[in-house]
């Protein structure tokens, strides 16, 4: 049997490398991504995205639509240009927590988080539309929040402020700073 020379080995290695890279890229980006979170037989939320990229415990999504099913009230939808889903966030000690991206909350270790950004709109929550540039939801506190400029529009009033906090299943909205509410008519 003829012994393989160095050229053959090099060509074989390059082939394996290119093949490996291609398979990694083919697997990591998905068009038309869908996900669902269940609690027993109850759907908590459904997510649809135009595309998704998968990394370890992190999904990077584009063209995102998340529909929340609060149970006791009408479902509502959050739309955003981009989103990050972090699942099973590992417990991080205080020394290494500084390395964690600021948009994720280190306190929510062990849970899942959805961070949405760019043209974020909450449609249908308490008969209003909430507009902002970012929103974060986590499965531990089950609260949606941000520290950004926010605007809430409804038929008879309009609220502007900085920072919002609300629970999908609750009916309380908190605006943290510099609130202005315009009441139309009356």
């Amino acid at each position, binding site marked *: 049997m003829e012994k393989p020379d160095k050229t053959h080995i090099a060509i074989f290695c390059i082939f394996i490398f290119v093949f490996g890279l291609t398979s990694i890229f083919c697997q990591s980006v998905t068009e038309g991504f869908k996900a669902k979170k269940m609690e027993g037989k109850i759907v908590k939320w459904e997510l649809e995205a135009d595309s998704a990229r998968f990394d370890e415990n992190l999904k990077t999504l584009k063209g995102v639509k998340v529909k929340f099913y609060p149970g006791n009230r009408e479902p509502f939808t959050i739309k955003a240009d981009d989103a990050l889903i972090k699942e099973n966030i590992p417990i991080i000690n205080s020394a290494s927590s500084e390395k964690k991206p600021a948009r994720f909350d280190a306190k929510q270790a062990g849970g899942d988080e959805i961070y949405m950004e760019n043209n974020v709109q909450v449609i249908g929550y*308490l008969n209003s539309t909430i507009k902002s540039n970012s929103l974060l939801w986590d499965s531990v506190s089950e609260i949606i929040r941000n520290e950004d400029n926010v605007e809430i529009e*409804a*038929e*008879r*009033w*309009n*609220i502007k*402020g900085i920072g919002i906090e609300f629970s999908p299943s609750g*009916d*309380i*909205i*908190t*605006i*943290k*700073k*510099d*609130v*202005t*509410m*315009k*009441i*139309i*008519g*009356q």
Partner: protein
Amino acid sequence: MKKILNLKNITYLSAIILSFNLFCGISAENIVVDKELSAKREIAADSMKWEYEAGIAVFTGNVTMKDDEGEIRCLKMTTLFDDNDEIEKILAEENATLSREKQKGGAEIIEIYPDKNLIVLKQNAWISSDKATFQGEEIVFDTEKEIINITKGVKGQIQTGNTMEIE
């Protein structure tokens, strides 16, 4: 058919469509402006907590409420909405002051009933105009008829040629 579709008729038709589109465009713009103009009441504060089902919005810190008739300032303001999202009652607490074109006032608590055109000032209440100052435990002010009714603990001063005191 040819007569109907001649160049002159098509030109007229285009002009009509263009005018209609322009009219619709202008109308839509007007509607937006009207909605903005009809914002009759504005509340500004440091923060807000809004309980939707209960119809209660609580504003805290440096609260200012402005409307067509004047301004109310306080540290805490509770706004109660009815089922149609109309304001039923506004409760201004902690250093509540009232400032209108003809009157100024203050109290521990100021209650506003927009539907009834009533402002009720409670606890260490006072109201003053150019020539009169009244104090009382409860002052009811009809904003439509401009009638001040002091229901509890009346004290007052009316400036005439000689100042007259009421107690």
